[in-house]
């Protein structure tokens, strides 16, 4: 007989639902990470795990412990906020590193930096740099690297 056995069935069902939902989303994200082809696609996959994946698992934990300890537990809120606030930092680092590498290698699969973009617009009229001028500002499906 553990403390968990004192949970009423309806709460157990709710907790189980959130746990399964959260872990399924995280699994899908992990699957996407190995399955998707380009780096910029792969960057999207783990956000499933960091948004509702985390939120659902934290919700399950919050419900369980609030019942067992008989008071409202909001520790999970701190975890959730910390995950939400820190994810963009990592993502921006990775994204910008990839952009920098792809721009340095060239190939035109990624849009040029904003500074280069405005100079490309200017050179459009003078045709001094035909390569920069032909680079479109936005692109359709990029073929970056496998």
């Amino acid at each position, binding site marked *: 007989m553990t403390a968990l056995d004192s949970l009423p069935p309806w709460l157990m069902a709710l907790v189980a639902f959130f746990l399964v939902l959260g872990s399924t*989303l995280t699994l*899908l994200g992990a699957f996407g990470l190995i399955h998707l082809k380009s780096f910029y696609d792969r*960057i999207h996959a783990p*956000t499933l795990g960091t*948004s*509702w994946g985390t939120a659902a698992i934290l919700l399950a934990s919050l419900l369980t412990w609030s019942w067992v300890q008989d008071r409202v537990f909001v520790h999970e809120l701190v975890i959730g906020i910390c995950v939400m606030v820190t994810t*963009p930092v990592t993502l921006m680092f990775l994204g910008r590193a990839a952009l920098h590498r792809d721009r340095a290698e060239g190939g035109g699969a990624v849009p040029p930096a*904003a500074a280069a973009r405005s100079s490309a617009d200017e050179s459009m009229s003078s045709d001094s740099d035909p390569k920069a001028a032909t680079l479109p500002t936005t692109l*359709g499906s990029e073929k970056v690297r496998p």
Partner: protein
Amino acid sequence: MRRLLPHPLLTAALILMWLLLTRFSLGHLVLGSAIAVLAGLSLARIEPETPRIRSWSALFRLVAIVSVDIVRSNWAVAQLMLTNGRHGARTSAFVVIPLRLRDPVPLALLAIILTATPGTAWLEHDREAGTLLLHVFDMIDEEEWRVLIRDRYEALLMEAFA
């Protein structure tokens, strides 16, 4: 008051977090408050500009909208993963989005929003040009994304922050 608490919101949030992570007692309240005040003072040295929240209601509306959007886009991206990107028909693309926001705090909030909603990834923000390079996982209409970010998030952020 202003001199002791240059960042009152940050100080309050830190005290709250300290009390949440420890068991509430007078000793922890004193210790947590001391650390929070010190943190506020040191941040004032690095970042003298205090973000001013003009409209709390706009901020709460934004939180509500974003919570719904996170659920919706989670569902959309999860479905795309399961169907293998509508059986290969999905295309991802870069979008350049002109932003009216200039202050670092609302920009940071926008970055959190766009990262927390699966399907959009904030890649690069150019401060001089005021443009954001966004990568969209499932691109259907480019203009739609510009309008969405401008009207759904940016407008509320501009309303919330002075």
